């Protein structure tokens, strides 16, 4: 799978093919000699139409036979959190989809940066032209509501409810994959990153290597688990379970190129419609992980949803670390040698 030349770049830092860091046009091609591999697939999770139904979580648990777990990842615990409607808490070994719920409010006398005249604060948004969610879905009143469906007014406050279904990002430069010492983690022909459970020896290195905190160890099992992008379903020509179950097409599955184009159009539509704070997360291939296979449309800063604002794959700095490790080892040798110089006592 991996050639000698790719091995040396981590030592030398000489990385013309962006094997450690930077944009990669064909991430599957990088790890296979098979020119005829399928296109890279992924998820576009459009949180602006997420209704927080958790159908994705349930479908994922059912299909992948994941054990019940509490909000701290412990198995067979109910674990109610009091954190809005979120009792899943986080992604982990037993939750491969996690719907985040963020309740927000603001005073209505704030200068409204959105549509309408200054006096119209909080009034229903004028939607002259219903926006297009994506090409296949005809524009309608329903889609019009989808521009800010999570927002309403309550007394003197405007409130909104942000919901977002988080998942493994299947990074272009996956920290978990880079650091796995057994070769248990691998890149599939679809560009996703999957754990081979019969190889994993539970060393746990991938857990702190992931800049998103996705992969985790199942305590009673010892091995690590995470989203496989339903590798077993993909090989049978099916969509991943979560995308199949999503009732609002908040989770869209497809070829990554196509999803990116769709996401750009959706962002433009939302911005034209005056939806504040809309941004794509993980779409940019020049970011710290070379772009991701599962990217998002968010309505607020990433950290509001528990996502890192500027993730960087740790392997970017590995050549520098190896150089300093070599110098440190040489220093230890030097100290030992000089300890033998001089007097016998």
């Amino acid at each position, binding site marked *: 799978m991996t050639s000698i030349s790719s091995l040396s770049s981590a030592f030398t830092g000489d990385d013309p093919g962006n094997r450690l860091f930077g944009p990669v046009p064909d991430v599957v091609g990088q790890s296979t000699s098979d020119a005829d591999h399928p296109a890279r697939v992924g998820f576009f999770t459009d949180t602006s139409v997420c209704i927080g139904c958790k159908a994705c979580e349930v479908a994922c648990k059912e299909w992948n036979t994941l054990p019940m777990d509490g909000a701290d990842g412990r198995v067979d615990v109910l674990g109610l959190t009091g954190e809005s409607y979120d009792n899943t808490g986080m992604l982990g070994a037993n939750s491969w989809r996690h719907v985040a719920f963020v309740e927000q409010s603001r005073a209505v006398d704030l200068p409204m940066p959105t549509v309408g005249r200054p006096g119209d604060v909080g009034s229903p948004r004028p939607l002259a032209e219903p926006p297009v969610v994506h090409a296949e879905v005809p524009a309608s009143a329903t889609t019009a509501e989808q521009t800010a469906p999570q927002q309403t007014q309550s007394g003197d406050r405007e409130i909104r409810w942000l919901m977002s279904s988080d998942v493994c990002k299947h990074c272009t430069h996956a920290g978990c994959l880079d650091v796995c010492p057994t070769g248990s983690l691998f890149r599939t022909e679809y560009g996703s990153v999957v754990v081979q459970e019969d190889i994993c*020896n539970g060393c746990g290195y991938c857990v702190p290597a992931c800049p998103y905190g*996705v992969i985790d160890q199942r305590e009673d099992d010892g091995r690590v688990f995470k989203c496989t992008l339903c590798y077993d379903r993909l090989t049978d020509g099916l969509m991943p379970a979560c995308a199949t179950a999503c009732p609002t097409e908040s989770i869209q599955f497809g070829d990554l190129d196509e999803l990116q184009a769709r996401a750009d159009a959706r962002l433009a539509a939302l911005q034209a419609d005056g939806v504040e*704070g809309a941004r794509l997360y993980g779409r940019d291939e020049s970011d710290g992980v070379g772009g991701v296979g599962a990217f998002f449309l968010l309505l607020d800063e990433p950290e509001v949803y528990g996502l890192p*604002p500027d993730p960087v794959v740790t392997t970017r700095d590995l050549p520098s670390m190896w150089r300093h490790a070599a110098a*440190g080892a040489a220093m230890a040798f030097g100290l030992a*040698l000089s300890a033998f110089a001089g007097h016998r*006592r």
Partner: protein
Amino acid sequence: MSAEVGAEMGVSLPGAGWRRADGAPAQRREGRRRRRAGDDPGVSMVEEAEFTSYYGRPVIKPPVWKQPDVPAYLFLGGAAGTSAMLGALADMTHRPALGIAAHRVAAGGALASVGFLIHDLGRPERFLNMLRVLKVTSPLSVGSWVLAPFSALTTATAGAQLLGWFPRLRRVTGAVAAVLGGPMTTYTAVLLANTSVPSWHEPHRELPYLFAGSAAAGGGALCTVFTPVDEAAPARRLAIAGAAVELAMTHRVEHGHGLVSEPYRIGRAGLLLRTARASTAAGTGLLLATGRRRWGAVAGGALVAAGSALTRFGVFDAGMTSAKDPKYTVEPQRERARAREAASSPGEERAGG
């Protein structure tokens, strides 16, 4: 990207004025006082900065590595590495007593280190999967390929010495083990630094030297303890030099990286590292003053070795602290993103100022 969006839409307030609406626990974790990088701890606080997280939950997953397994593995592996160097050099310079002690410390440390590593695995019976591939992007893979031959060679050397077998061959195995001893002292630093744990990753340029110094202190000190004083001089000198490097590098890691240096000074990690410093300094003083007497060598060596071990426990603990609190992940990344955005739109900044 978010700045562009904000600018286009004329958003004047961060996040368009949205604040979390719900319960107290999440609110209390927000709005921390933020220290500016490089400031004296506890002295100058800057204005209240808004720090956002998802209900105070960590962004990254804290390592699942156990205590004392992993810190003990770090300490023993490093001490064994420098002991193997001492052993080989003692063989070459005809110091038989130092050679015996150093080879035994190297073998014992290596075997115990392997034991702790295997015990920490979620599936210990699959430990041989570590040698299934060699990946230089994985410090644990590289480390396994260093640790496996190192522990085999040091054990063979010490065993042959104990039994009086193969006097020539065991000098060769001892010499090869000494060469592997170099990477043994520093690969564990890369192992920790090559993660998303902020307080391990940020000082990735210093940690290898800290670990090499700590390994020299630990290995030198243990060999000082187990060697008669008339042959222990090299071990003692190595312990003193290593301790000096360890103290200097720990200070840099504790103070050189702004917010992510903070976990090294507070809580359990702070206590461990302060104790380590006191122990190492006292032990070094004892070795310098009374190292030529047996009791001084034993007491000083024990203190320096304890300081080396406590340093590893402290570094490990500081990383755990930084992984569990989202501020250490979010704030430096947020600042980095802000700086990049400011750099990419300098015209706007100038017009404003």
